[in-house]
């Protein structure tokens, strides 16, 4: 049996994966070989295959093929492919010399069964209904009693000044046209230079790649979603962040005053106090350190970052998130952006450890 490796250059090909700094979406790779190992690790599952090239040399390739939790939902199990199975993988190769690829499809060679196909489809929307409320009528951000659920994707979740129109960027926040940088946010000159540097280098220095926490609005951009735990008796809301390292954030709703910026210990998630105004939770946050990117795409910030977030739930399935960014050391004026998240009914956010996402 002759196994082959074909490398096809496809200029302009798009890739939906959120790994632009790792994978080269301008190329495509087709691999055939026997499976030697499967690493079923959240957030990224890998299988390894021995691939023989045209000269007969065998090399072991690592093939990333998705999030195990989403794969399980699509009926993939650890038994779907066995050691020794021959598979055909089509996907996107890694940048540089690494023998690694991001699969778009995996086909079982003997049966022709398609084992995996990447999809950008969002979770199905549950039947719409009014947003749940507490007995006193206040809106709930979490599930009704006896239910469970969390907030995840539901459309584009990129942060840019809402006065700007038609800014096209991918799920990672990479601009389709760098000339749009001026409209993304009213950046000072230094901030724009840093932002453009990050964009031009395909976000390769993103701290999240080193598993740093997704502070600020970015916690609501993470693919694994968020969950609100409303502890009214304690006067606080916990935000469980599916995309961090089992991170959480505390929003105090007990009426306490916000701390003075100079006295607050600087952290990734800041110091947050919230209050309800009718059906909107308004959260004021300061005290951020400078060790993270507060949104995908690499918009910079300083310790002066002050966020005002607004959470509302117009119906059971929709969470509206708006945030006003005020950082006079980075931006020339305050600006506002936002997006919606979608309710994933009947499920909790899943276990996720960023450190396990490295190539095994």
């Amino acid at each position: 049996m002759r196994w082959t490796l074909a490398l096809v250059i496809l200029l302009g090909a798009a890739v939906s994966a959120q790994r632009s700094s790792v994978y080269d979406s301008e190329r495509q790779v087709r691999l055939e070989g026997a499976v030697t190992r499967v690493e079923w690790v959240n957030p990224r599952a890998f299988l390894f295959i021995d691939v023989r090239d045209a000269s007969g040399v065998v090399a072991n390739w690592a093939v990333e093929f998705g999030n195990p939790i989403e794969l399980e939902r699509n009926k993939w199990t650890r038994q779907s492919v066995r050691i020794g199975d021959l598979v055909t993988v089509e996907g996107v190769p890694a940048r540089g010399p690494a023998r690694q690829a991001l699969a778009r499809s995996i086909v079982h060679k003997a049966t022709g069964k398609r084992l995996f196909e990447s999809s950008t489809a969002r979770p199905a929307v549950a039947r719409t209904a009014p947003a749940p409320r507490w007995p006193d009528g206040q809106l709930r951000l979490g599930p009704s009693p006896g239910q469970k659920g969390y907030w995840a994707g539901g459309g584009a979740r990129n942060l840019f000044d809402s006065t700007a129109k038609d800014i096209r960027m991918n799920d990672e926040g990479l601009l389709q046209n760098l000339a749009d940088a001026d409209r993304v946010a009213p950046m000072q000159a230094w901030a724009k230079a840093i932002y453009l540097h990050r964009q031009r280098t395909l976000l390769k220095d993103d701290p999240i790649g080193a598993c740093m926490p997704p502070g600020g609005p970015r916690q609501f951009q993470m693919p694994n979603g968020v969950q609100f735990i409303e502890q009214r008796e304690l006067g606080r809301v916990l935000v469980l962040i599916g995309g961090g390292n089992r991170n959480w954030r505390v929003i105090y709703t007990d009426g306490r005053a916000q701390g003075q910026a100079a006295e607050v210990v600087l952290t990734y998630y800041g110091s947050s106090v919230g209050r309800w105004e009718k059906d909107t939770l308004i959260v004021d946050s300061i005290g951020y350190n400078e060790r993270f990117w507060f949104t995908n795409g690499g918009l910079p910030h300083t310790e002066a970052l002050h966020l005002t977030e607004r959470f509302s739930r117009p119906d059971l399935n929709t969470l509206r998130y708006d945030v006003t960014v005020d950082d006079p050391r980075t931006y020339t004026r305050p600006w506002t952006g936002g997006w919606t998240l979608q309710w994933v009914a009947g499920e909790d956010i899943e276990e996720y450890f960023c450190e396990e996402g490295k190539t095994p």
Partner: protein
Amino acid sequence: MRKAGACLIGAIVALAALAAAQEGHPLTGTWSGDWGPGAAQRTHITMVMAWDGKTVSGTINPGPDQVPVSAIALDVTNWTVRFDADAKSASGPVRISAEGRLDDIASAHRTITGTWRQGTAKGDFKLTRD
């Protein structure tokens, strides 16, 4: 033994924290390095810079003999930095001017490398962000 292990872990954690990137204004922070007229004659230097949204302020060798930096300018089109400082001398203040290039801006330990001039004296310097 256990205590020593805990101290070691603490030290590793502290070092890891120090190694974390600083993603704000590229000049903000404490920088250290050396300057001199040539390779054979070097003097240690510490420089602390801060950005308030409009200007970058700085201090050379903070402490009893510190020298305030009177002007710092960053040109983001080519990542060059210019400094002016007035050091004390027996005959009065002496203007020191320096110009350097900011490199490796994505790193917490980015560098500024360049040249300085003090009257007729001149030389080079290198600073690395701590």
